[in-house]
């Protein structure tokens, strides 16, 4: 099968920020490569400059899920391209690099810099960030999203996946705007905004005060948004949000996703991606891949 012209061995990816293949290699050695759990590897979101991320605690366990306030720690584009990308290129699966810029110039520099590297098969734009000028959450607003996609579309010939924010009144409208601005595929959902209080002090528990909710608890919300987006767009969809079994994955494919991504479930079991792919195959479901309207 293929996604935006990129050959895939199967329909199960990891969700950005939920699997660090380099760290996992340290823990699991070569066995990780022999039994790599995903059909493509999506990097944690890379920003232009390096980021430390939020202060701990960064995790809170919820009923059937969790909230994180990790805060996008990463080495910045240079550090990523120099140190990490050569390592990731040896995984043996196509690489998708997730990028986030805090303005269009940053985003353009990222797309151009990352897109120029031959190891990179696709780029994912994480638009779940505020516009630094307007304060509007880019991914929640059709016009802002279209502007961001438009600003970078010309900077690479590689497929661009736009990762939608779930905190929008109408995610399908944002999706349509992204498609019209030149996105090759869409991925959703990102985490829902959530919060937890310290059991004793009742002050915010997370170092980032608020965080993002993920896991089985958000699955029904994700499935609804994937359905709504699939009804109004024609480009491929990477569906995610609480997928923990082949049956869940089959639901997302039936709702209109072409491939799925596994996030939180990998925390409970690093082999979850392979297990889910096997369960999906046993159900007779395979990923559908729609051809993007225009392949650039």
């Amino acid at each position: 099968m293929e996604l935006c012209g990129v050959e895939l061995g199967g329909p199960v990816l990891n969700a950005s920020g939920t699997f660090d293949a380099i760290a996992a290699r340290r823990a699991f050695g070569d066995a990780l490569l022999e039994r790599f759990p995903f059909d493509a590897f999506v990097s944690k979101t890379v920003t232009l400059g390096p980021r430390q991320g939020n202060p701990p605690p960064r995790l809170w366990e919820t009923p059937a899920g969790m909230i994180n306030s990790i805060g996008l720690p990463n080495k910045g584009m240079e550090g990523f391209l120099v140190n990490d990308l050569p390592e990731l290129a040896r995984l043996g699966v196509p690489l998708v690099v997730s990028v986030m810029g805090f303005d269009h110039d940053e985003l353009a520099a990222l797309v151009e810099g990352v897109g120029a590297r031959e190891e990179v098969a696709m780029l994912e734009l994480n638009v779940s960030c505020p516009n630094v000028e307007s304060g509007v959450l880019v991914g929640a607003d059709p016009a802002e999203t279209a502007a961001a996609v438009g600003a970078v579309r010309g900077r690479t010939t590689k497929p661009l996946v736009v990762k939608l924010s779930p905190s929008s009144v109408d995610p399908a409208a944002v999706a349509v705007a992204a498609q019209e601005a030149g996105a090759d595929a869409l991925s959703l959902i990102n985490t829902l905004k959530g919060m937890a209080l310290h059991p004793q002090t009742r002050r915010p528990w997370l170092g980032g005060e608020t965080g993002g909710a993920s896991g089985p608890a958000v699955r029904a919300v994700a499935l609804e948004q994937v359905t709504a987006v699939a009804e109004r767009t024609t480009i491929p969809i990477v569906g995610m949000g609480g997928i923990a079994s082949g049956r869940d994955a089959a639901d997302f494919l039936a709702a209109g996703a072409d491939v799925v991504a596994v996030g939180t479930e990998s925390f409970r079991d690093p082999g979850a991606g392979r297990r889910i792919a096997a369960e999906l195959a046993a159900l007779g479901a395979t990923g559908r891949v729609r051809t993007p309207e225009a392949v650039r």
Partner: protein
Amino acid sequence: MSVPMAEPHRTLAPPERRVAEVRGARRLGAYDLITARDPVGPPDPRPGQFYMLAAGDGWGGGTGERPFLPRAFSHAAARPHPGGGAELDFLLEDVGPGTHRLGEMGAGEALMLLGPLGAGFRPPVQGTRPLLVGGGVGVAPLLCLHRELGADDQVLLGFRSGAHAAAAELFGDGARVVTEDGSAGSMGLVTEPLAAELDGDPAATVFSCGPPAMLEAVRALCAQRGVECQLALESGMACGFGACFGCVVETVAGYERVCVDGPVFAGSQLARVV
């Protein structure tokens, strides 16, 4: 991928969760000691490494809601199993829903297990004697380290009370015990005999695990005296293998992940243990 630098203190783990079987469970004073048969894992996890554990049944749900994620535990002992894999001992303190459920598990129950994970203790600095300093349930990783080092080490263990000090029996006769309430061993904090030891002879490498306040006291004591110490830290974890970036601790080089960059850190890497 390039072969990573050989890491002698890190035994590799199979890259997926597996089902281990609880072989025995007993109460040890204030703690639970459970033994599990890991069917396919390595027979030689390093002291200071850890496993992510979850009960196969009854893990969350109902009115208790949590746990959802697995929990981290250092093995207190590991024995190769003739049929392959290993037999692992874990010492548990009931502090919340996860440890509570694990502590009530009985023989035959399914234990979901991933590991060994993280980097364990490194060898002592050449020419120094190993000094093991444990507090509370933090004595667990020191037990297998103690057994590995043979009779060459000194063991200092601190507990809240005599019920907790029951865990000292695992170390045999050699361990010196202090309790906060004096109900077992001498009364006081474990850092007092540690300071005396180091003042007597500073040619030591300190290996320590226990509550943050104790680790910070150990770190400061050692730093003042120029003694190398290795501290096994704890942190709330979601994954245990570097995937979530949730378990970070502040080091002199910025935030590092306890699960892959630790859990054992050199005292010199930390400005403070919090």
